[in-house]
Structure formats: structure tokens, C-alpha cells
């Protein structure tokens, strides 16, 4: 039906535009990756050539892994991201359930209060957050970052999840109540598993800014032992501006983990974004 009307010419034009933009999007990443495997001479002689047997060189990677504590940074980033994600999802889902399931005085107001944070960035409170962390002795701990990112992620999580929780069938929940399940059991056993796709979307949207953040690690946790990989590679690359092999290898090492995670989750992400848009 609708499809037959699309002419071959239009389709070719569409593909041409999309391929061009895909090349623009991927080209820089590609250049960095191939050059990180080349010797210094080859990097400059032919920056766009693939590494060959002659030009293949891992010197960049060995320098990087010897110099910086990349595994330590990676571990810190993992701990912060996973812990913040856990708290955002669990606290966010609980609040979203309360707001979408029960009628009580102040429901709308609480919802608006929590949604405020979507529009106002937490960064503007940095000055006072730093004072708070200094006062509570949390500066240079991963805990400080986890708390900040949890607060930062909650507004959007509550907003998205409560939309989805409204769609969970009332009959199911009431059947649970008749069977004598407590409200807590209904939430954890019945509702949570049903909103899993929405949780995945929230997870991706929350995770990317946390993993990539430079501002709060720089301000709240700049010490060597608690550096995240984003801050770590920033400092590291800054020191090695003239060692091109090392810089390219450090960039590749920073790109790969996110890339792998994204490729694993990308289907979930698309499904989550377009959920509700299915005709």
C-alpha cells in the first residue's frame, strides 16, 4: 500500500543522505581507532590508511597501560555508575509507583516538585553541594558522586516511570490485593517486572551522562584513588599531548567500553524510546 508509492529515486536519495551522515558520525571514531594501532611514523605518513603488517604497532597501548592506573579508573567509574543507576531505578520506581497508584493529598504537588529537577540543572547548586560534602567529610569519596548522580537522575526517572506505571492493569494489582499481598509485594513482585522495558530506557538515559560527566568528578572527587575514567583520561591525555601513540590509544581505551555497552543496549533503547509509538 503506502510502500508502493515510494519511488526508487526517492529511496536512493534517502539512502545517500543517511549514508553521508553516518560517515560523518563514524569517521572521527574510525580514524582514532585505526591510528591507535599504528607506529608513530605511519600515523603521520598516511593517517587514513588501515594498519598493515609493517605499520602495526602497540606501543601506544603499552605506554598507556604502564603510566596511568586505567583499571583503577575504570573500576571507579563502574562502581559509581552501577550504584547510582541502582538507586535511581529503585527510588525512582518506588516514587513513581506511589504517585501513579495512590490518590492522596499532595500527589500532584509532589509530582511537580520532583519534575522541577528536569528543567533546572543540578550543576547550579555546585557551590553549595561542595560545601555540603566538605561539611560531611565526603569529598574525594565515590559516595559523594553516587549521591549527586542519584539526585540528578531521579526527576527524569520518576517522570518516565510513572507514565509507564499508569499502564499496568488495575485488575492485576487488585487480584493481588484480594489474595492478601501487601502493597510492597505488589510493587516488587507484580509491577516492577512489568515495567522492565521502561526501566531499561531510564537506565540508558541515566547512565550516559553519569559515565561521561567531567564536572562533578573534577570538583568533588579529583584525588588519584577515586578518579573516574572520564576525568582520568582527561588528565592523562593532557599530560601526553605530544605522544600521539599514547593519546590515540588512551582515546580508544576510553571509547571501547561505552561502545560495547551501547551496542548491547541499543535495541532496548530504541524499543523504550518508541514505546507507546507502536501502532
Amino acid at each position, binding site marked *: 500500500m*503506502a*510502500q508502493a508509492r*515510494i519511488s526508487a529515486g*526517492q529511496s536512493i536519495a*534517502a*539512502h545517500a*543522505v*543517511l549514508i553521508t*551522515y553516518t560517515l*560523518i*558520525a*563514524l569517521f572521527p*571514531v574510525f*580514524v*582514532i581507532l585505526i591510528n591507535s594501532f599504528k607506529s608513530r611514523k605511519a600515523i603521520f605518513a598516511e*593517517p*587514513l590508511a588501515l594498519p598493515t603488517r609493517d605499520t602495526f604497532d602497540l606501543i601506544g597501548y603499552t605506554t598507556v597501560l604502564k603510566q596511568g592506573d586505567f583499571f583503577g579508573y575504570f573500576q571507579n567509574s563502574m562502581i559509581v555508575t552501577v550504584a547510582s543507576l541502582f*538507586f535511581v531505578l529503585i*527510588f525512582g520506581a*518506588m516514587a513513581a*509507583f506511589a*504517585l501513579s497508584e*495512590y490518590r*492522596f493529598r499532595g500527589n500532584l504537588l509532589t509530582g511537580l*516538585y*520532583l519534575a522541577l*529537577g528536569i*528543567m533546572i*540543572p*543540578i*550543576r*547550579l*547548586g*555546585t*557551590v*553549595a*553541594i561542595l560545601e*555540603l560534602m566538605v561539611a560531611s567529610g565526603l569529598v574525594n569519596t565515590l559516595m559523594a558522586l553516587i*549521591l549527586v548522580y542519584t*539526585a*540528578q537522575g*531521579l526527576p527524569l526517572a*520518576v517522570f518516565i516511570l510513572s507514565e509507564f506505571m499508569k499502564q499496568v492493569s488495575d485488575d492485576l494489582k487488585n487480584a493481588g490485593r484480594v489474595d492478601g499481598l501487601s502493597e*510492597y509485594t505488589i510493587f516488587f513482585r507484580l509491577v516492577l517486572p512489568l515495567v522492565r522495558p521502561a526501566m531499561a530506557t531510564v537506565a540508558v538515559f541515566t547512565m*550516559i551522562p553519569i559515565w*561521561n560527566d*567531567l*564536572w562533578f568528578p573534577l*570538583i568533588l572527587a579529583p584525588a588519584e584513588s577515586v578518579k573516574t575514567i572520564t576525568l582520568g583520561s*582527561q588528565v592523562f*591525555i593532557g599530560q601526553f599531548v605530544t605522544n600521539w601513540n599514547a593519546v590515540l590509544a588512551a*582515546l580508544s581505551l*576510553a*571509547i571501547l567500553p561505552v561502545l560495547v555497552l*551501547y*551496542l548491547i543496549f541499543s535495541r532496548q533503547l530504541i524499543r523504550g*524510546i518508541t514505546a507507546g*509509538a*507502536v*501502532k
Partner: protein
Amino acid sequence: MSGRRQIRWHIAVFLAPAVLVYTAIMIVPLFGTLNLSLFNQTPERTKEFVGLSNFRTLFGDPRWSGAFWNALGNNAWFFVVHMLVQNPIGILLAALLSSPRLRMAAFYRTAIFIPTILSFVIVGFVWKLILSPIWGIAPGMLDVVGLKSLFAPWLGKEDYALTALALVSVWQFVGIPMMLIYAALLTIPDEVLEAAEMDGITGMSQFWKIKLPLILPSVGIISILTFVGNFNAFDLIYVAQGALAGPDFSTDILGTFLYRTFFGFQLQLGDPHMGATIATAMFGIILIGVCIYLFGIQTRLRRYQF
């Protein structure tokens, strides 16, 4: 049902963790910042209430106001570039992706979104390397198409640096408008499009006359998200040009100005009170922008229900 209403403790239990963390880490510090901007440090290292005089200094004192208006102007240009380049490209890509029976749509979607997941650190350095006259990828590529004379060390020239960085940021974030518009386009029912086709409205005119009016609310949301994001930007400039936002402050935006003021940089000493004043000014700017959108634009957008 028993006539007496019990206190339903489970509601409080469900709400408490989120509300507590959010209030303690986000709302209270935000007000703390607003409050801090009303004080100043005396020579005896005590706090002194000065009312709005910090704002007078920021907007009026030539030592501060020059830097502030420069940062604000640069930030406005940064935003304009995003609105003129990022959002139209995002809408175009989404429109192409949503055409039915397009092959490899999933591949394009995944690939075009990849820059968005990369950190500013990576993006900043990657583009610094590519645009670097030393490595010569950019001049080399321009040479292939015969435009080598156009090459300039863009990031190092006062006239071009900010625009170049804004375009790098566009490259990074074009995936977000693309995804949101894509989702919006998928919600348009087939019947509407078929009816349009019966009336002979197809192709480009179908996009302009039918689809675009229907997705305008999403375009509005993207604009306000771009606005909030741009007026908070810091990372890309910091990574590519450092906290001094060179060359000669030509890429200084509010985020880097706040960072430099609060923490100090090189010869400049950090000043928490002026830092808080700048943060409050940013808060005000964002609030004004959001209000203009909510009351001036959003209420005028027509929504269609199917």
C-alpha cells in the same frame, strides 16, 4: 469499607527515599547557592550580608561585566548554532528514517547515535586531533576535493573557534533530536497519511503540510532541552580549550566563566560568592527561557489527538 481512614504508611515509604535524596542534594544546595550570592567575604574572613550588590558588581563593574556579557553573548551564539544546525539536521534524519520500508534503518539509527554516547573528553580531543594542522587530516581531506586553501586552524582563531566548537557539539548531540522526532513521527496514524495521499499530498509537501504541524510539540520540547543543555555547557569547551576558554576568551561561555570564578584559575583567585552570583544569574536565565517556552510557546502549540 471501614469509615475511618487509616494512615497509609506505605505511600510515605515509597516516596521517602526519592524525596529525601532529591531535596537534600538538589533543592537545598540550589537554594544554598541563591543564598550564598547575597553574601560577601569580609577581610576578617567572616560572611557579611550585602544584598544584591554582588549582582551590581557582576552586571556593572567593568572588571566583571565585560567577561559576563562576553560569556553570555558567546553562549547565545552557541545556542543559535544548535538551533539552526542541530535541530534541522535531526528532523531531516528522523524524517528519512521514518519512511516506510527503508532498509538498514536500524543500522543508521544506531550509527548516528554513537557520537552522543561518547564523553566530552573523547569528543573534544578527537576533534582537536582531526582539526590540528600538525596531523593534517582535515587539510589533507580538503586537498582531495581541491579546497585546501580554505583550511585554517579553526580552533586557534578567535573568529572561528566558538563556531567550530558549537559544530562539534552539534555533531555529538544530533542523535537526541533525531531519536525524539523519530518517535514522534511514528505516532502519526497511517490513516492520516493515507487521507493526505488521497488528496494528492505526498513527498515533501506531505512532510511540510501534514507531518511537521503534527510533531511541532516535540520540536518545542527539543528546543527547550537544547536551551537548558547549552546554557549549562562546560565540558566540551573545558576539554578543548581549557578553563581559560581561549583564544583570548573567545570561546568563554557561562559554564567555564562559573568554573573559573568559583575555583580560580592560574593568577585569578577563587571567589565562592561571585561564583554563586554567576550560578544564580544562570539560574535566572534558564528560568526565564523555560517560562517563555511554557507560557509563550507551549500554550500556543496545537495538539492533535488521534
